[in-house]
């Protein structure tokens, strides 16, 4: 019986949930930030055989030299099993070598489409965004071509929206049958959405987001309330097992002691 932590932040909870979602011995394409932390945590716990891939070129490095500040930094390259550049990393993905992609975004819709480009009116207002975000980076490529994607989000009503301003990284598009296949994509699409409040998946039929588990301190109602569209609520929603003392210790002391990605405090 593991000892559960009684003191953890929402971001730490996300990291733990992300880590537990990963399966040992799978190839995981890591987006920047929390995904890198979650992969490292999984490697240190149940998934020592997880193979991280970084878009700047590194495949399967040891992440034992400190948390990478960037998916292109030196710490992604130590003892890598292959190391060319962006084209090679994305080609491997397009070919089918990456089981999971691990990405984030600023906005998400019920079909798992993500926005990391801009807030405002598009295409009309493309040259006058309300808020300009950093842009796709490799997230849209991962969303299309990794076999499955895991999405990490901060859970706020304005970020979960029936209609998002811009689709950067495609999920199930409009949710119509075989929408991804018809659009020309090769990956199967979003697998899980992991937030500060819940674990969600997608309905097999409608491809709309459905609740799978509530995180500690949350209820079905509190999750729905924080979501800007209606979630599918199946009968078997369960409470997610809280972070263990060991998981939190690993995050704080081993993986991100300086709090680069796992801030001590988080809004929302």
């Amino acid at each position, binding site marked *: 019986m593991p000892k559960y932590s009684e003191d953890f932040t929402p971001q730490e909870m996300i990291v733990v949930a992300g880590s537990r979602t990963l399966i040992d011995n799978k190839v995981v394409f890591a987006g*920047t*930030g929390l995904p890198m932390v979650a992969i490292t945590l999984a490697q240190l716990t149940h998934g020592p055989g997880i193979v991280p891939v*970084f*878009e*700047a*070129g590194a495949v399967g490095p040891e992440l034992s*030299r*400190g948390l990478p*500040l*960037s*998916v*292109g*930094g*030196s*710490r*992604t*390259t*130590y003892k890598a099993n292959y*190391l*060319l*550049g*962006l*084209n090679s990393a*994305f080609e491997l993905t*397009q070919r089918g070598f990456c089981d999971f992609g691990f990405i984030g975004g600023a906005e998400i819709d019920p079909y798992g489409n993500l926005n990391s*480009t*801009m807030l405002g009116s*598009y*295409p009309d207002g*493309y*040259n*006058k*965004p*309300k*808020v*300009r*975000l*950093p*842009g*796709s*980076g*490799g997230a*849209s*490529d991962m*969303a*299309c*071509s990794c076999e499955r994607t895991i999405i990490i989000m901060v859970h706020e009503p304005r970020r979960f929206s029936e209609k998002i301003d*811009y*689709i*950067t*990284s*495609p999920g199930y598009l409009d949710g119509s049958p075989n*929408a*991804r*296949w*018809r*659009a*020309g*994509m090769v990956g199967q699409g979003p697998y899980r959405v992991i937030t500060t409040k819940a674990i969600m998946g997608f309905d097999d039929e409608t491809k709309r987001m459905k609740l799978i588990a509530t995180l500690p301190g949350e209820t079905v109602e509190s999750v729905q309330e924080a979501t800007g569209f209606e979630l599918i609520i199946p009968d078997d929603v369960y409470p997610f097992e809280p972070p263990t003392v060991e998981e939190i210790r690993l995050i704080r002391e081993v993986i991100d002691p300086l709090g680069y*990605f796992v801030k001590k405090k988080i809004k929302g």
Partner: protein
Amino acid sequence: MYWTGLSPDEARQFLANKDKSKRDKRISLKEAVQKYVKDGDNLGIAGFVDARQPIAIVHEIIRQGRKDLTLSYQSAGIAAEYLCGAMCLDDNKNSIKRMELAYLAHEAFGISPLLRYLTENSLIEMEDWSNYNMSARFKAGAMGLPFIPCRSPMGSDMLQTNRAIIQDCPFTNRPIMLLPASHPNVALVHVQEADIYGNCRIQGPLFTCPEISMASAHTIVTCDRLIEHDDMVRFPNRVSIPYFSVDAVIEVPYGAYPGNSNGLYYYDEKHIPEFRDACEKFRKGERAPLQEYFDNYIFGVENTTEFINKIPLNQIQHVEKIEPGIRLESAHTVLGS
């Protein structure tokens, strides 16, 4: 269809007529920028986010002043932020007309304040792509192809405003995306090691540096150290950019500082936030810190050596020391002067 930089046919013609001989290409950075970087050019910016970006070259461009630039890159960080900052401070001296990009920000160090400033005020034209798209566009250019197919990000809104074309694959009948090649006028590249002919040996991720160089009409390379040609060609499988793709080579130690140069120095976790904070203040209406930053570190110095001299020695020693257990891998002789 319009092309920025060179069209595929122009790029072929230009290279076919070019002198591809193996000759000493050392020149000062000042001269290289004078000779190869023109107002209105499309510049291919190598590196990735804040790693191995051509900081020394960009500082020199800013000192000289260039206008109406198009910047092409997959994911950029400080190199593009510096150019944005120069434009923010005085767009009569430096200006960006357009960016073709996948990402501009600093990952762990935060978003790009000046991307927000310039776009939210409609001061530059944007063309959004994914990282793979921009990398593949340079690759198509490097391969001498007018386009390259790609399977992402089909379904994304990016395709509404960029120049990608979707057609049915004539072999499978499924839709596929075609990306137009990118041929910048000048590639700006920083590497760890080069020889006097321009052969480059990159350690760590290659990013899209070889493709950007080979796609461009001209390439300026700065290197942390010049090494003997014989030490370069002793390991032919490790040459990342062949000499005939390079026009000018300049030894500039710390040429990617305050970013990461794999095997030599890590990100400066003090200096990058110092610069970024000044940018963020500018975005919020406070101009002075950014002006001071530029006056102190760029306009107030002649070159990268003087810039580095302004950084406390222990800070430089620190970024060398924490470069995590990876040292440049091959034997070499540093070239004497």
